[in-house]
């Protein structure tokens, strides 16, 4: 909205009509006699979930082409990371995908543990799994609420946040922060969970069981919701894989890739959970996959809470974590998909190069394939069900 003229500064004029096309589009110059126009959406726009900017080539309400513009929150995390110790880098990962901050912390910790051969006690592994699954639910709740709000059902936003606050309380009591946790350390976490942890988790499980049914009544089974999402933004499995999409986006297209299953980490291999997949690959499938994932996370939580062990919450602390020279990679399944941390270590306390392979980055790159041929209004459920987080993309 703020820059309709963007990219059109050096207009080539032909009889007073601007013929230049903003960068990134597949056409070279405007057709003189069509009704096409360019619409700028973002970076400040309510449905772009932050500061994504889209340039749209439109014909009336129909979207002909979408060109996303990134970098409106590119903070240079990888450069900063090169100048910070591995421990300090953990706190930077909070700020990648802040709705999966525990999982981000975990991804980096896993890489450090792999490099230094640090083992993790049983209790710490349980804490990791439970905390990550809680966060998956928390993130999906926010996604659900915001999806509803984008579709005009503002009430869903508030219902989603209602239950989300319960999980936020668990985190806050556990590590003192609500969003940027910085909780995990190589070998465990910086503190043990409080005694109230398991009772609180049980309360969340109980509450969520009825709450998800409420969500179904309000949105999932609502006919308008079906009209808005069915057949919209179909992403074929082949395209999804070519773009490197992951997480619920890929699973919505019918590919059962879940890092927790295909490349297990922590102790996920001990828990039984289903992988929901879509059959069509449209917005509705992606929606249903996430709703089902919440139920599966509850299942994992229930099993973990039942067998939560005692013992130490962390293994030996080191004065400094100097990774031996080499390349290390670890990946986890965050709420948005496959997060990979690649470290190139030179033996010192700081990485030579640290690279985050963020799920939203790849998921968003498929946007043009999803949106073409739909209406402007369909962009809203498409972006919402991609569930992209711009700071995760821009890093």
């Amino acid at each position: 909205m703020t820059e309709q003229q963007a990219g059109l500064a050096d207009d080539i004029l032909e009889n007073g009509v601007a013929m230049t096309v903003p960068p990134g589009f597949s056409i070279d110059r405007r057709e003189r006699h069509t009704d096409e126009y360019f619409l700028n959406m973002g970076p400040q726009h309510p449905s772009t979930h932050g500061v994504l900017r889209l340039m749209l080539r439109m014909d009336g309400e129909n979207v002909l082409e979408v060109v996303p513009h990134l970098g409106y929150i590119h903070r240079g995390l990888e450069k900063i990371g090169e100048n910070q110790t591995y421990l300090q880098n953990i706190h930077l990962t909070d700020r990648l995908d802040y709705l999966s901050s525990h999982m981000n912390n975990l991804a980096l910790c896993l890489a450090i543990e792999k490099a230094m051969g640090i083992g993790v006690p049983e209790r710490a592994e349980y804490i990791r799994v439970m905390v990550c699954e809680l966060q998956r639910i928390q993130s999906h709740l926010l996604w659900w609420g915001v999806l509803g709000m984008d579709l005009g059902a503002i009430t869903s936003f508030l219902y989603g946040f209602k239950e989300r606050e319960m999980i936020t309380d668990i985190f806050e009591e556990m590590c003192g922060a609500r969003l940027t946790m910085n909780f995990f350390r190589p070998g465990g976490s910086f503190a043990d969970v409080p005694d109230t942890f398991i009772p609180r988790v049980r309360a969340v499980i109980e509450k969520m069981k009825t709450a998800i049914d409420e969500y179904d009544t309000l949105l999932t089974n609502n006919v308008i919701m079906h009209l808005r999402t069915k057949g919209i933004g179909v992403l074929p499995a082949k395209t999804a894989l070519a773009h490197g999409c992951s997480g619920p986006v890929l699973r919505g297209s019918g590919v059962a890739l879940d890092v927790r299953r295909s490349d297990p980490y922590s102790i996920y291999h001990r828990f039984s959970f289903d992988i929901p997949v879509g059959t069509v690959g449209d917005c509705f499938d992606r929606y249903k996959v996430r709703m089902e994932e919440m139920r599966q996370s509850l299942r994992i939580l229930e099993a973990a809470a039942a067998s939560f062990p005692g013992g130490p919450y962390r293994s030996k602390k080191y004065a400094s974590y100097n990774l031996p020279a080499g390349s290390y990679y670890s990946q986890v399944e965050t709420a948005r998909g496959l997060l990979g941390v690649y470290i190139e270590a030179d033996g010192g306390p700081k990485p030579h190069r640290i690279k985050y392979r963020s799920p939203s980055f790849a998921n968003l790159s498929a946007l043009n394939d999803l949106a073409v041929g739909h209406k402007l209004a369909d962009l809203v459920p498409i972006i919402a069900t991609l569930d992209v987080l711009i700071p995760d993309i821009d890093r």
Partner: protein
Amino acid sequence: MKTNAKNTQGRVRPVERGEFVPDGQAHWSLAGYLTHLANGCLSLVKGMGLTFGYFVHPGRIVTQQYPENRETLAMFPRFRGRLALVTDAASGAPLCTACGMCEKACPNGTISILARRDPANRKVLGRYLYRFSQCTLCNLCVESCAFGAIRMAQDFELAAYDRSDLQLVLYGKED
């Protein structure tokens, strides 16, 4: 799909898509049309029932009235509100030895430990500067302190009109 041999718990399950809005172009029939219409209307009525349930049950309201509940509002003991120095219970002097570990541990250059020599020529804390405006409350400083001399305080009402008010002098404030 091939899976790991040891990892066969759970299964891959297609999600249900519901019936009342048919996928693709359904064959048109009046009965089918009316059924979909009726089911659709029913789904709307159910949604209205849910919200109405909340409307008529004031007990379900979860709002905490913040400025009014100041007396009862307590943060969790681990809540990271801001950095604070721990002082010796007897003398009131800070436990800090000006070793500078927290300064090094801080990822953001938030802490400045300004040491001085005491008359016995030992290094002691002269001033403890805490740039709250830059702090991410990551707890790394507290973890790094070997003397338990700093902690996270539970304050949260810290808004200021001026940027410079956020540079706190935790110790050694003069002038």
